[in-house]
């Protein structure tokens, strides 16, 4: 059993901070028997301030801006929740959106934690983790030049149909041309200048789209665009190791 506890440390200067202390202990069965794939039960408690928070579980290597593998039920007024996880390597992120929605971007005023990596081993029943969730206070993005030095990645600008930079979109990077599965990489949300930078682990041929909403195919009203040169299929962007392929500009249009 994995036990999670969220505690509220109070308010810090300038920023409201809520500390999630996710308590879990690792208990390994002593009999040496193995039950592969047997899920561990995850339970815990969240402070009153974080009632209705959700805990998102991703597998190692997942894009944490994409759909989660498991999402907890909203934490109760006493902060308790329960999850079942099979053995594996995971990332946990706590989020609480003011809108009450379980998906979509985390906006200014929402709570979010940094991802915390953990592992559930065979037979493991309890884990102790801690997460700090802060209120998002700004959409400001900073891409210092140093971030791209010696990096392998893709950079460019997202603009609208009139050529104006678009704020608040993310660039999704796929390694397959159908762009149908989970993106391999996702950029931070663009700032006011529409610029983005996506580091990638290795050189290769990638396919890009930009959109303002997550999940599923683009819907009417969404802003969506992909990188192509006027072809029916998306055009591949070649990235060389140790270089940033720049000026990969994407125009987003409203989907009608």
């Amino acid at each position: 059993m994995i036990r999670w506890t969220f505690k509220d440390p109070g308010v810090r200067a300038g920023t409201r901070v809520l500390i999630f202390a996710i308590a879990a202990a690792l208990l390994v069965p002593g009999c040496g028997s193995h039950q592969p794939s047997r899920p561990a039960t995850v339970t815990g408690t969240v402070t009153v301030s974080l009632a209705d928070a959700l805990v998102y579980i991703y597998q190692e290597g997942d894009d944490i801006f994409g759909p989660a593998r498991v999402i907890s039920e909203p934490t109760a007024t006493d902060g308790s929740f329960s999850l079942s996880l099979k053995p594996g390597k995971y990332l946990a992120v706590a989020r609480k959106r003011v809108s009450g929605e379980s998906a979509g971007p985390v906006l200014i005023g929402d709570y979010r934690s940094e991802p915390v990596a953990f592992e559930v081993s065979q037979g493991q029943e309890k884990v102790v983790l801690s997460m700090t969730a802060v209120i998002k206070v700004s959409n400001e993005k900073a891409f210092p030049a140093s971030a791209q030095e010696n990096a392998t990645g893709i950079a460019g600008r997202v603009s609208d149909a009139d050529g104006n930079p678009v704020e608040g979109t993310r660039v999704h990077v796929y390694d397959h041309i159908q762009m149908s599965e989970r993106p391999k990489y996702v950029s931070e949300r663009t700032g006011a200048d529409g610029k983005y930078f996506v580091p990638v682990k290795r050189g290769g041929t990638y396919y890009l789209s930009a959109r303002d909403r997550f999940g599923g195919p683009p819907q009417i009203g969404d802003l969506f665009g992909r990188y192509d040169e006027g072809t029916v299929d998306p055009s591949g962007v070649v990235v060389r190791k140790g270089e940033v392929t720049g000026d990969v500009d994407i125009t987003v249009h409203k989907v009608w």
Partner: protein
Amino acid sequence: MDLGLISTVLILLMLSGCSSNEDISTLIEKAHKGDDRAGRKLVVVLGSADREAALAAYRALIEIGAGSQPWLMTGLKSGNAAVVEACSAALGSMGSKASVPALIELLDHADKRPYAAAQALGEIGAMEAVPHLVRALSSRDMELRKAAVRALVKMGPETAGPVLPLLSRGEDEVSQRAGIRVIGELGTRAGVELLIPVTGANRDAAAWALGRIGDRRGLNALLGALSDERWPVRRQAAQALGSLEDPEAVPALTAALDDPETVVREWAARSLEVLTGQPVLYVDDGGNQVSPYNLYR
């Protein structure tokens, strides 16, 4: 008061002239009954910054169908580019033949998001628009060029004839590249002899198109392109030779496994796998012999 509420109030005031509290749902209801004034107001809402209101109006106009076309065609004359874009899209999805002349006219209005008109013409399949779309392939507006390419491709092989002359216009690399895209997407075999001599910045696009067409006449040109000084050309050639599926390319692609550029080696391995039916490894950035990952899932 939040911004969404403020914008909603402003829209309602604009729609009502401050004299009534007619909301979107009322407008939609009236428009469904054929109320001309309500229909025209819904078209105005298409340009609203209120996303939900604009979407509700759009969906309603589409649902109304043919009855909403006169309102939408009025919207094509709007000074609001967002309204023009939405009306173009709606008319295109309806296949409105009556809107074709107005949509063609929009292709020359850079401030009215002409890409949407090009896209709509493709959806409608308006063959009378072909000369205008071909002309749009030379536009400085990249979005319009791209939309014109897709529209011509969507309209089918009959559009290739007027596009072919663009392939010989090496002095205008922008329109030549757009033309190459159309011919490649359409798989127009008549384009092969025009693609082979393409020089300059469009050599990579020409290699791509030769691969798309898949005509053996392009083989020697693609083999030569494998030795091009520019790696993007070599990369496209390596990819295109796989599409040609001609075993004569095997020795050259095997040699390309030693190309100094990783992505060229990777595409050579992919194409060799297509040609030989056997897994082929290449040397990646780290010096390891690896299989290319599958781009098609």
